[in-house]
């Protein structure tokens, strides 16, 4: 409208513009039909009746809560199977059901992994209304994990179920590699939260490797990504869960403090080492030698050094992150669009890009866009600062946890890494003994 008016009246004739707009609005409000309706509705002589506009009905709202109900039931069953029945077969059957129902039938949306973004958006964007079911999807697996360990990963998450199916020849990764790759989910989570909070889109959904498989979808690059992950998954068990899944960051934390976590052996560990080979995700920690490998004072000295390092690393990361935030803001579509439009305006070209010509067609103004972009850039600066600090802090804490030495008298589960798949149960000779005793 503005552009239309200003192209007839040169700048400066503001009053004239306003008068013209008022006249226009007057005409519009006086007319029986909006100006858009160029042709009046015909008065039919025949019996013709104007049909109603019909649109297909939406899915009944019962489904929203049905999914939540199914989630609770599945979480409960899997937790029971892990802790009480200790049945790998049962977990496997439930995971197949989850894969078919939550994956292929309900087609993966909404999932707890993605719900992180909805929760973030609900916190940062006051205009976003979050459905109760989404809060349920976010919170329920966390609560269950705090109670029983990662039973969500074991048999409810369709991603986990799909990857669990292809674990055929799992190899043990060297510790340095799995520990390093294990840091990536923190980076992914932080970046995804930053992008959601700045209104730049849902990264987790966009780079979701398996949902295209569930939907028999058409995004080829994601199908390839999913396929590659599954092929890797034959040898390196659950690569998405261990080295990508942003929800696993929360699950690891909650599982570490789980009240009742599944155990390898039903009774006393006999240090037979058999379970260690059964674990596909390297979550079983072998027992340690009785003596500490180094003198206590040396360990304390190193710990002190690392503790001093925490604020230094975090501060450095934050400063670096704020600089990177500026760069990352160019991944926001609005920022990119404005850069493109500015470039076109300065060069005076009429050869607009697709996005820019669509923008010029739409009802948004360049001023609105500039305002939007300014806030987005500021948000990215602050967000980058926090993200950098967070990643550096995680890195520092990882260093500390790696440098600490803890004595273990028996084979223990690394509760954070364990996905409660139950493979170790059958390998434990004590378990076999118990079963035999029960049968007799």
């Amino acid at each position, binding site marked *: 409208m503005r552009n239309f008016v200003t192209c007839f009246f040169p700048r400066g004739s503001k009053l004239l513009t306003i008068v013209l707009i008022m006249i226009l609005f007057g005409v519009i409000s006086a007319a029986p039909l909006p100006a858009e309706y160029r042709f009046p*509705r015909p008065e039919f002589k025949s019996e013709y009746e104007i049909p109603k506009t019909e649109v297909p009905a939406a899915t009944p709202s019962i489904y*929203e809560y049905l999914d939540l109900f199914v989630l609770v039931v599945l979480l409960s069953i899997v937790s029971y199977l892990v802790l009480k029945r200790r049945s790998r077969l049962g977990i496997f059957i439930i995971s197949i059901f989850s894969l078919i129902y939550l994956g292929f039938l309900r087609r993966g949306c909404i999932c707890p992994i993605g719900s992180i973004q909805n929760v973030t958006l609900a916190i940062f964007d006051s205009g976003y209304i979050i459905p109760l079911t989404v809060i349920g999807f976010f919170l329920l697996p966390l609560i269950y994990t705090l109670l029983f360990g990662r039973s969500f990963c074991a048999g409810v998450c369709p991603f986990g179920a799909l990857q669990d199916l292809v674990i055929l020849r799992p190899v043990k990764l060297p510790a340095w590699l799995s520990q390093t790759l294990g840091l990536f989910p923190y980076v992914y989570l932080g970046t995804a939260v930053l992008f959601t909070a700045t209104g730049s889109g849902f990264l987790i959904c966009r780079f979701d490797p398996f949902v295209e498989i569930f939907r028999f979808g058409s995004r080829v690059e994601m199908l390839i990504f999913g396929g590659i992950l599954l092929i890797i998954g034959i040898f390196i068990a659950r690569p998405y869960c261990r080295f990508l899944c942003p929800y696993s960051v929360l699950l690891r934390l909650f599982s570490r403090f789980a009240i009742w976590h599944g155990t390898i052996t039903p009774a006393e560990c006999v240090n037979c080492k058999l379970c260690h080979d059964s674990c596909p995700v390297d979550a079983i920690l072998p027992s340690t030698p009785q003596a500490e490998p180094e003198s206590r004072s040396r360990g304390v000295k190193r710990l002190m050094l690392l503790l001093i390092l925490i604020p230094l690393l975090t501060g450095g990361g934050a400063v670096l992150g704020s600089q990177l935030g500026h760069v990352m803001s160019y991944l926001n579509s609005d920022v990119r669009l404005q850069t493109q439009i500015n470039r076109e305006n300065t060069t005076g070209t009429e050869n607009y890009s697709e996005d820019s010509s669509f923008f010029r067609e739409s009802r948004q103004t360049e001023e609105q866009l500039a305002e939007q972009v300014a806030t987005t850039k500021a948000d990215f600066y602050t967000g980058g600062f926090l993200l950098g600090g967070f990643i550096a802090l995680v890195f520092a804490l990882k260093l500390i946890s790696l440098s600490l030495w803890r004595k273990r008298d028996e084979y223990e589960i690394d509760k954070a890494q364990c996905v409660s798949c139950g493979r170790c149960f059958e390998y434990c000779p004590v378990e076999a003994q118990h079963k035999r005793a029960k049968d007799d």
Partner: protein
Amino acid sequence: MAEADKEKNNNLSRRDFLRYGFRAIIGLGALSVAGHTLFSSKSHDMVWQLDPDKCIQCGRCATRCVLSPSAVKCVHAFAICGYCDLCSGYFRQPPFALDTAAENRLCPTSAIKRTYVEDPYYEYTIDQSLCIGCGKCVKGCGSFGNGSLFLQVMHDRCVNCNECSIAVTCPAKAYTRVPAHSPYLLKKAAEGSG
């Protein structure tokens, strides 16, 4: 010996104390995040819909949907249709002749059916099974006609992705989340007719 045992017990209880503390902290943390979001929550689900008044018919609805063909299809608001003989949503401009021959038509899938009502009026209905949501007719109708044709996300097809992949690229920012119990943003006049 007793001294060592005691120390061991103390160690254990300290570890347990820390464990209970952390457990309480993260549990309460998760609950408070959820509680905070509860204030902005609604008991109903939200689904994606496009606002026909913002739509500029760029054609991306047809190609950017995760479904193929797209979940977006054309809707006809009969109540504001002019029933024109020379329908600018039906015929390419300018048409060679006002008949149903393919070379005259705008719709690439011939999803619009033209039926004679009475002189000089024709009724245009959309075969939803053929429509691909390209918006060519919407553009035609909006630029020379009443704008009675418009695009909508069809909720028998939409899988309701957490992030709609059309919304991401919509240049008019026409996509919004709407309550699942009233999932369509029909043109006002169309709503009036039922």
